[in-house]
């Protein structure tokens, strides 16, 4: 905690360009955090994710560096608008974006929409959200105006590399999709370093009436990093969210996802593919709130767990009294590749309306020996049979990605991961 105190006013965004109101909100958020500190196992909602180890560590903000050529390796997704952050700093030379899309700094958003920033910086139940408010050092706002169809995906890359001491980043991303607009946004975290770092992201995504968003979140941070995220989706009337969350990076990862189906006819589908190996820990905590009638929500979370990794899923779908004719489904599937890997899945339903269609389920299993033998008996070797079967398991989650280039990117990452994960 000490290191945070030392760094709080060193953030380039502290006070968002000198506002005292914001500074006091930030100091307040920090106080809120210090009341309880980092979550540990004794916190019910953090039972499997002990982050008290951050107490004994020390992170600083990275040094500003402007780069003129894409770092290598670079996770290219073809035909995308591109926004690059390098160790938390926006890279103008590497970014290019169509003028159909408005981009603001968080400081600018504070000027145009102070209430929104006030709301985000107010005390929050999630301690990492409070830390993000206090320490915010990077991020941006993407606004798609009303009635705009953005065909090319918007690819935001948070690239961490070339550091010689542990750094931290607390980005805030705000995305607003205007009435009857359509867009695809890729929120991408990518690390190419073995040095420990800490990424603590807050993302707030608003889908206005009748809009439609494909949100692709790719978490490929370095294997010795810590990644914590708080992602909130707010859907207005008839808005449609298709989200895909790919997770393969970080040593310890925790994401809180909140979905608020605020008005009639909103629909949200979130699929996730989570690939875990070594001692990685990947934890999702998701709450879906059905507030009004005729909304649809779907979650399909698939974990592939190798070595001594663990995959954690806590999901809660809450159907409020007014949310009649809700259609909600939550599913987790864990594929265990090694006896030392563990899965904890806990999907829950909380229903206060009576005319609803809700289901939830979870399953944990290993590769089907019958299927492996079947494939081998057709001449496929042991390894090919395993890879095909694991790939087949993952495929279901990938169906939600309609954009070809993104689909191809994720498939390549998956194949690469499988090739480098011991199939025994």
């Amino acid at each position, binding site marked *: 905690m000490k290191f945070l105190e030392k760094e709080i006013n060193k953030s380039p965004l502290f006070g968002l360009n000198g506002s005292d109101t914001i500074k006091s909100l930030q100091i307040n958020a920090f106080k809120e955090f210090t009341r309880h500190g980092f979550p540990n196992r004794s916190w019910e909602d953090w039972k499997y994710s002990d982050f008290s180890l951050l107490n004994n560590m020390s992170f600083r903000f990275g040094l500003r560096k402007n780069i003129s050529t894409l770092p290598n390796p670079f996770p290219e997704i073809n035909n995308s608008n591109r926004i690059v952050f390098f160790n938390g700093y926006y890279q103008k030379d590497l970014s290019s974006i169509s003028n159909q899309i408005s981009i603001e700094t968080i400081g600018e958003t504070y000027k145009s929409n102070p209430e929104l920033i006030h709301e985000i910086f107010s005390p929050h139940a999630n301690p990492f959200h409070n830390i993000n408010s206090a320490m915010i050092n990077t991020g941006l706002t993407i606004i798609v105006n009303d009635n705009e169809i953005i065909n090319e995906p918007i690819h935001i890359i948070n690239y961490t590399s070339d550091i010689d001491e542990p750094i931290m980043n607390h980005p805030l991303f705000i995305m607003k999709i205007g009435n009857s607009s359509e867009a695809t946004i890729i929120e991408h975290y990518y690390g190419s370093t073995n040095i420990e770092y800490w990424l603590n992201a807050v993302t707030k995504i608003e889908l206005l009436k009748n809009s439609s968003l494909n949100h692709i979140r790719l978490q490929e941070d370095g294997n010795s990093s810590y990644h914590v995220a708080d992602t909130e989706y707010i859907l207005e009337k008839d808005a449609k969210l298709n989200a895909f969350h790919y997770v393969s990076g970080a040593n310890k990862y925790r994401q809180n996802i909140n979905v608020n189906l605020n008005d009639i006819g909103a629909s949200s589908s979130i699929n996730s593919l989570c690939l875990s190996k070594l001692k990685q820990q990947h934890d999702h905590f998701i709450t879906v709130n059905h507030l009004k009638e005729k909304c649809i929500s779907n979650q399909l979370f698939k974990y592939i767990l190798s070595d001594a990794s663990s995959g954690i899923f806590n999901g809660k779908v809450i159907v409020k009294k007014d949310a009649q004719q809700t259609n909600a489904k939550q599913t987790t599937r864990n594929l265990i590749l090694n006896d030392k890997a563990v899965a904890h899945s806990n999907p829950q339903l909380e229903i206060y309306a009576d005319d609803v269609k809700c289901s939830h389920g979870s399953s944990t299993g290993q590769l089907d020996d019958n299927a492996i033998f*079947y494939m081998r*008996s*057709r*001449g496929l070797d042991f390894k090919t049979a395993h890879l095909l079967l694991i*790939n*087949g*398991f993952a495929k*279901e989650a990938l169906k939600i990605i309609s954009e070809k280039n993104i689909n191809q990117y994720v498939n390549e990452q998956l194949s690469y991961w499988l090739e480098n994960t011991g199939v025994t």
Partner: protein
Amino acid sequence: MLEIKDLKAAIKGKEILKGINLNVNNGEIHAIMGRNGSGKSTLANIIAGRDSYEVTDGNILYNNKSIIDDTPENRALEGIFMSFQYPVIIPGVNNAYFLKAALNAKRKHQGKPELDAVKFLDLIRKKLKIVGMGEKYLHRAVNDGFSGGEKKRNEILQMITLEPNLAILDETDSGLDIDALKIVAEGVNKYRSDDRAIIIITHYQRILRYLEVDHVHVLIDGRIAKSGGEELAETIEEKGYGWLDS
């Protein structure tokens, strides 16, 4: 082609096969009949190389070489094929992709060039016709959502595509209506040649009406209790298995 010598096998310590002797030559069709639980599928699976069965004694020679220590994939590449009594669903693995991968693995093993997508499609369209399957089956996951009959046809499709030398059909005729049965029988007849052999495991004489079988064996409690010609199948259809119990 196939020589089984005094084969004994167990599952989880329980002896299932108690000394099987069987010779199958090129060009022959053998039928193996027997009650449920007599060990027919066990025998088929052991020939195909499933390692959950423990071979405790005896040997299996294929083209004069013991295959007892071979992997299932090696046996397949060398020309052994088993049509599963219960074909397995492989979620998320596309049927065409699977078949193409299997065919190319075999072609590679034979030193032939692999087929590209276009050539494969040409080939598979012809094969689909033989078993009366539409192209939609290519785009589905292997056996996923297939009816019992569709699964069995898919097995025959694999057989006539991979062109094995020894095909073992484990109750491929069970649960088929008469039309499907004829299609399967026709697939087998088309596949049949002087340098190939077939072992048909069945409960019924039905399918044997469409095929010319050279030998019929009756398996009782892990042993071949009687062997004969086609007339043995008819006798069993009339009298059942009781008269063979010792």
